[in-house]
């Protein structure tokens, strides 16, 4: 979908500014659309607050008796990335393809890679806002320990944004029409989330761990958990998890490039 020919004709500063303005307009579209803003950002915030309130001072035995909320905060950081890049993005791409928005962009001089860069950049901004909000709520509301290793968290978020964006784009190409998009993608998303240990820590060595170990969602949660350094002797850098996420990202890119369409099938 992005042509190397287009990349070779990169026009330097003007094009960087054009990408920047695409991020800006994507942001406007996102925040002005109540569905996107509420479902993506609001959902994470509301659930963290509720889970924090119900968990009280319960502890997670398998993670050295840390408080449950200390487990939930990184989980919802990961949720924010996955909801923004995978769920919301793929539903919106299906809608844009089916209603002709993508075709309109295709017929404009905006190179495809810039459109995609705008979408990815915008996803990164949304994720950053969510991370800041969730950390703030965790810290001020529930006295959660902040990530000890910020660079490790940043890397995890970056890898997550890029790979889940690729998966979101790929998923959008697999959904045939707009009516099916929201329910199909939501079911896939929430079933995988359920398996991934967002709501409760997965019991170690269980079948569930083996199943969820195959998908990237559980690894994203683990990769966001590690930088908090709550586990003595464990590394803040979850390289193994990031590798699996990256492999899924590559799969996403391959599917997206092969199946991408600018307009509804006629």
């Amino acid at each position, binding site marked *: 979908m992005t042509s190397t020919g287009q990349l070779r004709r990169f026009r330097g500063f003007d094009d960087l500014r054009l990408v920047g303005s695409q991020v800006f307009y994507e942001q406007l579209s996102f925040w002005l659309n109540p569905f996107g803003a509420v479902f993506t950002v609001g959902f994470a915030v509301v659930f963290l607050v509720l889970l924090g309130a119900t968990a009280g001072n319960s502890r997670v035995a398998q993670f050295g008796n840390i408080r449950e909320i200390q487990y939930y905060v990184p989980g919802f950081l990961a949720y924010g990335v996955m909801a923004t890049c995978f769920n919301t993005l793929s539903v919106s791409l299906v809608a844009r393809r089916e209603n002709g928005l993508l*075709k309109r962009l295709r017929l404009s001089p905006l190179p495809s890679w810039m459109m995609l860069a705008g979408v990815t950049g915008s996803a990164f901004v949304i994720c950053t806002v969510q991370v800041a909000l969730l950390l703030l709520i965790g810290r001020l509301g529930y006295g959660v320990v902040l990530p000890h290793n910020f660079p490790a968290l940043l890397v995890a978020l970056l890898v997550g944004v890029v790979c889940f964006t690729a998966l979101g784009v790929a998923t959008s190409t697999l959904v045939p029409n707009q009516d099916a998009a929201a329910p199909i993608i939501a079911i896939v998303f929430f079933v995988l989330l359920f398996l991934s240990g967002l709501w409760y820590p997965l019991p170690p060595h269980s079948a569930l761990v083996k199943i969820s170990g195959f998908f990237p969602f559980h690894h994203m949660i683990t990769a966001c958990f590690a930088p908090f350094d709550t586990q003595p002797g464990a590394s803040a850098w979850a390289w193994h998890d990031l590798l699996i996420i990256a492999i899924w990202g590559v799969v996403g890119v391959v599917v997206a490039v092969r199946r991408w369409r600018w307009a509804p099938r006629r």
Partner: protein
Amino acid sequence: MSEAPAVVVEGLVKSYGDLRAVDGVSFEVAPGTIFAFLGPNGAGKTTTIEILEGFRQRDQGRVVVLGFDPADEATSRRLRERLGVVLQELAVEPYLSVRRVLMRHAGFFPHPRPVEEVLELVGMSDKARARVKTLSGGQQRRLDLALGIIGDPELLILDEPTTGFDPAARRGAWELIQALGERGTTVILTTHYMDEAEALASRVAVISGGRIVAEGPPESLGGRDRGSCQIRFRLPVGTAVTDLPVEASEAAGGGIEIRTLEEVPVLARLTNWALEHQVPLLGLTVERLTLEDVYLRLVGDDHGDAARGAR
């Protein structure tokens, strides 16, 4: 026409499966002229213009648009910077304001028209702050037109630009398109309205079943200039077409048909002759041949998608 044509199409072929949607289409569009495509739904109009836009790949033939091959990805950005496209039923970001949408689109082009000027041109200055999703159908179509001209294109492609317009908005759109034409913009438009083609275009091509069945200035299309008035009648048994004092031909169904630009002298000679020889001219009618008559005759049995089964 010493300048190179804005658009050259030669032997264009495009198939969808077994269906040859475009079957050997050739035409040229001179720079600064308005060219209209007429034809039933599914005749190949949209496929042809989508190939010009570079949105669809052709199977065969040569296509040059503003000196570029629209199928060449390497030059597509440069081509699209000089191309404006207004298609049917393409959405616009629903939550952004009209002005924002135009500003965003203007940013794609190296030398866009000022946003306020374009709002003025399409008559939407009072809607600049309205969100796109609150616009009526007609307003959305005018926004489409605005997005098509924001980049100050050399070539503007309009797919049924005034479908759904009320008469006043339609007249406004015509004036805008005419003004663009006078400023030297080349315009290719498709339309189902014969009066639109007649009012705007200096050349018209009728496409039917994937082929161009007639092409020329609207006033002479399909022989309109050679007989823009049609006189029809039947002769009684025993009188032949060769007995008539004027040039006439036998039409399908056994009647007599005369096509003439000078219907008054022809009728005078004909009726004087009939009185003199006491020959009745049965079912005499005098009709002016409209562009629509010519079109329907050219398109013939091609009733479009409805007959063919929608693709």
